[in-house]
C-alpha cells in the first residue's frame, strides 16, 4: 500500500512538473503556426471571385486581425476553457474532431504496439539467450529489415499484395467496412465496442481492417523494442542474482521469465512508452496510406493548408498524451520495480 501510495504521489508530482512543458508546447506551436508563410484566410477564401472582403471576413472569423499577443491571450483563455477553436478544413470544432479521431489513432497505435511487443520481446529474449549465435544475428537482421523500409512503402506494398493481388485483406479505406453497421459507441475502440455489442462478425471485420495498418506500423518499431529487450536481457542474464537462481536449482523457465525477464522489462517499458508516443505522432504516413481517420493525418492536412486550430489542437493533444504515457510508464515502473519508489 505504501508503495502504491508512493508511486501515485510520484506520478502526481511528475504530472505537475510536466505542466510547464505542456504550456511551452502550447505557446511554441502557436508561434510556429504563425511563422508559417501561408495565410489561412487567403487559402480558405479561395472560392471563385473571392476578394479582399472575403479574406477579411475569414481573418476576422479566425481572430487573425488582432495583434499577436492578444491572439495568444485569447487562445490560452480558450484552451483553458477547453475550446480548441474551429477547423476551417472540416468546419467542425477541433475538440470534436479530435475526440472523434483519437480513438481511431489510439486503436491503431495500441494494436501495433501490442503486435510489436508480442513479437519483439520473445525475439529479444531469444537473441539474448544465444548471443553471437546465428539466431542472434538472424533476429537482428529481421528487426533491422523492418525498420529500414519507409512505412508508406511497406504500407503500399502490403495493400498491393494482400488486397489487390490476393484479396485476403479488406479494402484499405478506414476502420470498418463502409457497408457494415457500427456498434453503439461506448469506448470509441471499434474492436472493443463490437465485443461489447456481442457482434462477432463486426468484430472480425474491424479486426481485419486493423490488421494491415497495424502490421505496417509494428514492423517499424519491432527493432528498437527487440534491441532493448536483448540488451537488458543480456545484462540481467549475466547478473549475479540469476547466477544465484541457478545455484539453488530453479527451473530454466523460472530463471528466464521470473528472474531475468521481469528484471529486464523495465527499460523495455521505457522504450515502449517512447515508441508509443512517437508512433502516435509519426503515423501520419500510415494513416494516409490506409485512409485511417486518425488524428495525425488530420493534422497533416491542416498543416498543409495552414489551418492553425487543428494543428495546435493536435500538438497539444499529443503533448498531453506524451505526459500521460510518461505517467503510465512511471506507474508501471513503480509496479514492476520496488526500487523505483525510493528514488
Amino acid at each position, binding site marked *: 500500500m505504501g508503495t502504491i501510495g508512493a508511486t501515485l504521489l510520484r506520478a502526481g508530482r511528475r504530472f505537475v512538473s510536466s505542466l510547464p512543458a505542456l504550456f511551452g508546447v502550447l505557446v511554441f506551436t502557436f508561434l510556429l503556426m504563425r511563422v508559417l508563410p*501561408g495565410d489561412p484566410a487567403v487559402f480558405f477564401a479561395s472560392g471563385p471571385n473571392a476578394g479582399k472582403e472575403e479574406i477579411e471576413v475569414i481573418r476576422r472569423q479566425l481572430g487573425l486581425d488582432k495583434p499577436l499577443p492578444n491572439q495568444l491571450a485569447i487562445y490560452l483563455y480558450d484552451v483553458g476553457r477547453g475550446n480548441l477553436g474551429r477547423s476551417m478544413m472540416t*468546419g467542425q470544432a477541433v475538440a470534436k474532431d479530435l475526440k472523434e479521431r483519437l480513438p481511431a489513432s489510439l486503436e491503431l497505435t495500441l494494436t501495433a504496439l501490442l503486435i510489436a511487443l508480442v513479437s519483439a520481446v520473445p525475439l529479444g529474449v531469444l537473441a539474448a539467450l544465444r548471443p553471437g549465435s546465428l539466431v542472434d544475428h538472424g533476429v537482428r537482421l529481421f528487426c533491422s529489415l523492418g525498420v529500414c523500409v519507409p512505412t508508406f512503402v511497406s504500407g503500399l506494398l502490403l495493400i498491393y499484395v494482400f488486397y489487390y493481388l490476393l484479396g485476403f485483406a479488406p479494402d484499405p479505406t478506414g476502420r470498418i467496412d463502409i*457497408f457494415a453497421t457500427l456498434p453503439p459507441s461506448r469506448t470509441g475502440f471499434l474492436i472493443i465496442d463490437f465485443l461489447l455489442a456481442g457482434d462477432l462478425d463486426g468484430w472480425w471485420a474491424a479486426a481485419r481492417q486493423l490488421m494491415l495498418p497495424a502490421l505496417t506500423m509494428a514492423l517499424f518499431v519491432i527493432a528498437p523494442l527487440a534491441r532493448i529487450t536483448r540488451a537488458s536481457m543480456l545484462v540481467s542474464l549475466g547478473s549475479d542474482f540469476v547466477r544465484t537462481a541457478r545455484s539453488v536449482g530453479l527451473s530454466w523457465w523460472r530463471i528466464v521469465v521470473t528472474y531475468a525477464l521481469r528484471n529486464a522489462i523495465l527499460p523495455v517499458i521505457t522504450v515502449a512508452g517512447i515508441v508509443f508516443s512517437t508512433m502516435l505522432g509519426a503515423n501520419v504516413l500510415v494513416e494516409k496510406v490506409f485512409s485511417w481517420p486518425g488524428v495525425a493525418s488530420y493534422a497533416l492536412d491542416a498543416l498543409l493548408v495552414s489551418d492553425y486550430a487543428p494543428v495546435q489542437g493536435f500538438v497539444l493533444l499529443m503533448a498531453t498524451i506524451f505526459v500521460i504515457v510518461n505517467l503510465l510508464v512511471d506507474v508501471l515502473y513503480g509496479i514492476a520495480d520496488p526500487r523505483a519508489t525510493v528514488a
Partner: protein
Amino acid sequence: QSRAETLRYVTGATVNTLDPNIPGSTREAFALSMSSYDRLVSFGRKQLNGKWVFDLDTITGELAESYSVSADGLKITFKLRPDAKFQDGSPVTAEDVKWSLDRCVTAPILGKAQLLTGSLTSADQFKVIDPVTIEVTLPKPDKLALPNLATVYPIIINSKLAKAHATAEDPWALNWTKENAAGSGAYIVETFKPGEQVIAKRNEAWNRGTPDKPAAFKRLIIQSVPEPATRANLVERGDADLVIDLQASDVQSLEGKGKLKVISTPQYNAVTFISMNNTIPPFDNVNVRRAIAFALPYDDMFKAALFGRGAPLYGATWADGKPPSGGYPIPQPIKLDLEKAKAYLKEAGMPDGFSTTFSFNVGQAATAEPMAALVKEQLGKIGIKVDIQKLPDAQMSTAINEKKLPFFIEGIVAWLPSTDYFYRNFYTGKQRWNYSSTDNAELEKIAQEARFEADKAKYEEQGKALNAIHFDQMFQIPIWQAAQDAVMQPTVDGYVYQFTRQVDYRNLSRK
C-alpha cells in the same frame, strides 16, 4: 439496400461542409450540395465529341417549374413547383426562396461574390409575388444572371428550419447549415464525417430528375481515400463504383486493361497556365514573356505530366496570325522554338538569360513536378536559370494573393465560361485570380463592353480582339485543359461532366 443500389464514390478530397456557401468549402462539398439542395434552375446537358457535358445554354427549371424573362431583360419570374417539398416534408415556398437568395447576396459567404457576376447584389432584387411565384429584378440586362442561379451557391434552404437555428450574431444560421442540410434535394445526408465519409439516402419524394423521378441510387457513399493508388485499386477490384481523381498514369493503365469504363473529358471550363507576374522583372518585359512562350517543352510536358490526357492549348496555327475564334480558351500558336525564344530574349536585352524561381503547389505535385523539371531543363538551354519552389497549398495561395511569385503553375476554372467572364475575372484588377497581374486598359475596356453585349456576332468580334491582345502581350501561357478522367464500373451509367468538375450523383444509374 443491396450493394447494387448503392453508389460508392471515392475521392482524395473531402466534404467539409454541408453548406457550399461556407468560406473554405471544397469542391466535394459543392458536389454534395448539388444533390442535397435544389436550386431554382439547373443547366442542361449536351453531347460533345461523344461525351456528355453540361450545357450552359440550356437552363431548365429545378425547383422552378417554369421561368420567364421580360422583354427588356430586367425581370425574371419563377413559378415554383407546387409539389416541391423540403426533406422534412414542408412545402417549398417563395418565402423560402427569397430568404435563401437574400442570404446569398447579403451574408458574408461565397455566394455573394459569385452572384455579383450576374448583377445580383441586393435583397431588394428578390420579390415574392405569391407563395409559388418569385420575381428577380436586374439593374440592367445581364445574360449571366440566370446561369448564376444554377451555380452551386444559390441553394434554396428551408427557411423556417434555418431561422430556428439563427442567432443574433449569426442571423443566417451559417453555423447550423454547415453541419445540417435543410434542402429539398435528391439525397438526404445521413452521416457526415468530414475527412472520412458522407452517407446519404435517396429522397423518395424528389422528382426533379430528367424523367421526373427520384435519383437512381438508393444510397450514396462519398468516401475520402487520400492515396490515389489505393483509389485506383478500389475501383479496379470493384469495391468502388466511380472515381474521378486518379493519377493520369493509373487511368492510362486501367484504360489499357479494358475492364472498366473510362470517360475522359477535357475540363472545358478550366485552363492550366504557366503564369508570369507581369509586374515583376524581367516578366514585365513582353519579349521575355514571348521568349518563355517559345521555350517551353509543351509536348514533353503534356506527355510526361498528363500522359497525353487533355486538350492542348498550344501548337495551333492561326491563319494570317489572327485568332480564329472569339471563344476562350483557344489553342495558341506557340510551340517549342528555341531560336525564336533566343531572338525574343535578345530583343528583351537579355541574350544571356536570367535567373528566376518557378513555383507550384504541393497538392498539384503529381503533374506539376514533372512539368517543373522539364521547364527548368528547357529554359536552362536558353540561359534562364530556374530554381524550383514547391509550396504547401496555403503558402502558394498566400504568395499568389500577395503577388510575390514571378513564375508559376496555376489553373483557373469558371463555372460560367464565357469569354468576357474569363477576361474580366482573370485578367483585371488587383486580385488573386489575376495571376499575371495584367493591367491592360484596352483589354479591360473591351471585356467590360462585351459583358452586356447582346449581339452574338459583335460579341465574337470582341472575343477575337481580346484573344489577339492576349497573344500579343502573352500575359501568361495557357497550356492545356487537363482531362477529367471518370473511371467507373461498366455498369455505371449516365456520367456527365459538370461545371463543378465534380460528379452530379443525380445523373448516375446502374445498368
